């Protein structure tokens, strides 16, 4: 085995390299130099993102245990994008709250991204579960990232958020393992490609469903979603921005690899179940979001709703549906990170407060932030000319082609319900009088992150075609 055989893994390896540099630098650098580590990590993610356009990352590694291609490339870019934005957004927050331990934050973030990037290419269940956990474990720590001496407000909430996240996550991991045990036990192989030809038995199916449950935790599908609002509310906002998109994308990547590329399940026997879950997720997310007072919590429930739409795309089990799922994930990434970044910029009081009412009169305090937030909200609601519209529409098209007309109708109506609570924020921003008229000083990193997200939301909204083409390519490379 030569080093050149590892070339498909170049992107994850580069991330690994960057992470190691951060690790070493964190040890070497003086304590107050942590901010530079964040900048470095952001730059590294961005550079690797740029490199992804030049490096050939297709090919099989380790006898097909890991397979690179357009599919992995698409996801890698999503993760790198999310990583870049998260680092940028975190710069100020981390420096302010944990000035002494900034390196660890970025290291953990890099580790998680590394896990995610390896996930879509994994064609072996062992690798899959290792990647899954590599992605997941740093997240628990990051969720609880707060001053330990901060016994009120933010710190306390962060600890609670992390604990809940962790406990539900740990149990889910066990279920994931249980599922794998059943699947591997019944089939005798860990190769995902080989699993596709297995005869289904009761225990085997049981294993698959348990596996699905274990992964469903990560994407926050109802009823595995209950940690989501609590964690989002309590955890540091820039991290939540990352948490709300990247693990979701990774989770769907894993689901797609296992269930679509592997077992071709949703197109067959489990489809009604998936559709049921998709519908439930959409409805529950919406209903709970209606009366939320915390903006982060509101977006958490809204995120659950969005998962419902993604699950609908996933449940088609078709190549088209998968392409639409990928596009949805891409659009959702820029939109949701952007929205959380605005919350970070707006409602970053030290009490951990982030009420919807904190947005009162944002228009007067910072027109640019307000406009950005409005566009993000419109995108989340699926309104034309921002990316969210196309994302929903493509999902609907795919679902329609797969014959799920009723769910399309349900989804379309629920999108309107969702508009109600998104508009609560918009209304506060534009129609209410500000309680505090002081202008908002947005940190540079957050500003940059918002700008990038905004460009994505508007750009893809105005001209979605090339991005859709990429998603189609990625989908094709998975399905062959």
């Amino acid at each position, binding site marked *: 085995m030569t080093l050149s055989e590892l070339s498909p893994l170049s992107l994850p390896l580069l991330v690994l390299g960057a992470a190691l540099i951060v690790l070493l630098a964190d040890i070497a650098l003086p304590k107050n130099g942590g901010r530079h580590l964040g900048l470095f990590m952001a730059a590294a993610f961005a550079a690797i993102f740029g490199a992804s356009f030049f490096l050939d990352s297709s090919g099989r590694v380790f006898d097909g245990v890991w397979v690179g291609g357009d599919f992995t490339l698409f996801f890698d870019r999503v993760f790198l994008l999310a990583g870049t934005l998260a680092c940028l957004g975190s710069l100020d927050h981390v420096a302010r709250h944990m000035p002494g331990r900034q390196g660890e934050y970025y290291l953990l973030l890099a580790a998680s991204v590394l896990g995610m990037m390896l996930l879509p290419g994994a064609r072996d269940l062992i690798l899959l579960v290792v990647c899954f956990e590599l992605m997941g474990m740093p997240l628990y720590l990051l969720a609880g990232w707060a001053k330990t001496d901060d016994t009120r407000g933010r710190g306390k909430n962060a600890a609670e958020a992390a604990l809940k996240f962790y*406990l*539900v996550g740990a149990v889910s991991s066990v279920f994931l393992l249980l599922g794998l045990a059943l699947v591997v036990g019944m089939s005798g192989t860990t190769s995902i490609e080989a699993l596709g030809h297995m005869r289904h038995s009761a225990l085997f199916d049981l294993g*698959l469903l348990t596996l699905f449950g274990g992964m469903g935790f990560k994407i926050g599908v109802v*009823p*595995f979603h209950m940690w989501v609002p609590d964690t989002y509310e309590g955890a540091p906002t820039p991290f939540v921005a990352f948490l709300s998109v990247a693990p979701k994308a990774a989770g769907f990547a894993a689901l797609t690899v296992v269930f679509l590329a592997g077992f071709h399940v949703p197109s067959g026997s489990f489809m009604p179940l998936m559709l049921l879950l998709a519908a439930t997720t959409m409805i529950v997310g919406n*209903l709970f979001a209606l009366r939320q007072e915390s903006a982060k919590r509101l977006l958490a429930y809204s995120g659950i709703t969005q998962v419902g739409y993604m699950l609908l795309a996933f449940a088609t089990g078709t190549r088209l549906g998968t392409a639409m799922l990928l596009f949805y994930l891409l659009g959702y990434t820029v939109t949701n990170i952007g929205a959380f970044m605005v919350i970070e910029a707006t409602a970053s009081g030290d009490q951990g407060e982030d009420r919807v009412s904190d947005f009162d009169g944002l228009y007067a305090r910072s027109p640019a932030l307000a406009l950005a937030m409005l566009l993000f909200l419109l995108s989340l609601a699926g309104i034309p000319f921002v990316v969210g519209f196309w994302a929903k529409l493509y999902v609907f098209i795919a679902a329609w082609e797969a014959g799920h007309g009723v769910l399309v109708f349900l989804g379309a109506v629920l999108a309107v319900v969702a508009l109600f609570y998104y508009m609560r924020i918009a209304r506060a921003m534009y129609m209410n009088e500000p309680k505090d008229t002081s202008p908002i000083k947005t940190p540079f990193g957050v500003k940059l992150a918002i700008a990038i997200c905004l460009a994505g939301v508007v750009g893809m909204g105005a001209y979605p075609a090339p991005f859709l083409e990429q998603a189609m390519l990625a989908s094709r490379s998975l399905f062959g």
Partner: protein
Amino acid sequence: MSLPIELALVALFTPAAMAVILALVPPLRRTGRPAAWLSVLAASISLGASVWLFADQLGHPSRDLLESVRWLPHAGAAMANVGLRIDGISAGMTLVVTLVAFCVQVFSLDYMRSEPAADLGRYFTYHSFFIFSMLLLVLAPNLLQLFFGWELVGLTSYLLIGFYFKKPSAAKAAVKAFWVTKLADTGLLLALVVLYTHTGGFEWTSHPGAEVATIITLLLFVAVMGKSAQFPLHVWLPDAMEGPTPVSALLHAATMVAAGVYLIVRTNPLFAQAEFTREVMVWIGSFTAVFAAVIACVQTDIKKVLAYSTCSQLGYMVAALGAGSVMGGYFHLTTHAFFKALLFLAAGSVIHAVHSNEMSDMGGLWKRMKLTTIVFVIGSVSLAGIPGLAGFFSKDLILEGMLESGHTVPWLMLLGAAFLTAFYMGRVLFTAFFGELSEKAKHAHEGGWEMQLPLVLLAIPALGAGYFASRFAGMWHLEYELHLNLEAGAASGLAILGFAVAYVMYGRGAPVATPAILRPIAKLAASGVLDRFYEGLYRVLGLKLAGAVGFFDRYVVDGLMNLSGYLALTAGQKLRRLQSGNVRDYVFVVAFAIFALSAFGILR
């Protein structure tokens, strides 16, 4: 384009142009008298053209000209045209309209002198517009254009009745007039719809079949009842007297209210196919003639007397047309236009002098206003149908036609009405113009020449129009022959009797008391039973129902919409409790869900 068409265009569009100019150039309109004079100028041009047109038509009695352009498209072709139709009937009516309108405008110059300049300008703008709309109706080549003009004159009527819009009673009267006529006009609108659907056009010469013709003509007649104030849709006309008196003369006596009759004359080919409709017309017309005449006998307001008189005379015309006497109806329309306009203007002259509408405030005006008295006598006598004057010829024609068609009872009713007509006109004459000089009349004097000239102008045809009946009949392609027989004598005799009775009762300067025999009727008329009925209908079917619909929409239909929102929001709030915050619950849900999924997987 031939000469008559050009003349008609001039007659039609000179006042139209004037109305547009006055409407669009407020500074000009607000100058008052200059604007008024401009309007009179336009009216006189229009009158001149009409006279020429009429004279030309007299020279070619059988000429029937049609000039039209496409107005509404249908499937690339024409659905309806607009244009001019010039024959004897329209030429005659054009002359009547422009003549009376001209007289009224001149009269108004003095009568309305004290109005503020801006209002005066507005007044004459409406008048110019009225000439245009009325001629649009008169010269219409098809029913659609006729309807167009029909509604526009209705609009001018509304605007002119409401001229003193600051006066609540005037405002109310204007709106009432519009509502009642608009309700009736719905019939005409539907008639258009039916006519077009069944014949593919709006021509009144078409033959849609007897049944459809009956439907159409009945619908048309509903409109006629509104416009020409036939019972029970006459209620707006007395109230319309709230407008300035010259307006009453022009619109609500001479021309506009006669439009209904004109409509029937024009669409006679359709009415000829509908026997049932004509029967209805005979009875409603006759009843209106008597009914309105009776009420006229108990009025003390001089304009109200004349208004009910108009109602009654329109009843004559409608009955005549129902009986098939087109000549009678149309001729009476013409003569009535002259003498009733004359009467109204004379009354206006009196009102102008004594500043009151009440006959009790008048009395002995002969001593102060010689000319007015003379013309009023001419008008009254002509209206009553005393032989030799215009009214006699036309009324006689009607009664004869009625008898000829075998409608004896209606004939008797009309005879009764003839008696009553003479009686109430005599009553007005004797109480207002003769006897003791009343307090208010002491300082009365004739108006300026602007007021006197029209009176003289109109007195001439009121006296002599009857002698041209056969000439007109030729123009109108109708038969006319004067029969001096017993039946005709009966009417004349009754008319003279009526005057005699009036003289006996009021001739010696007695106050305007209601004759004892008519007291119950007076009471009934004063209580306004029909008005109250309509008002009740309006309150219950209109306002109450509207209120109910408003409530229903606001609180039930919209309530259901709101309810759905409320339910969602409440559910959202209640459901939040499920998210307890206790992580052990979360874990339990995860475990339970996985078991449920597994159960699904196994039991599937």
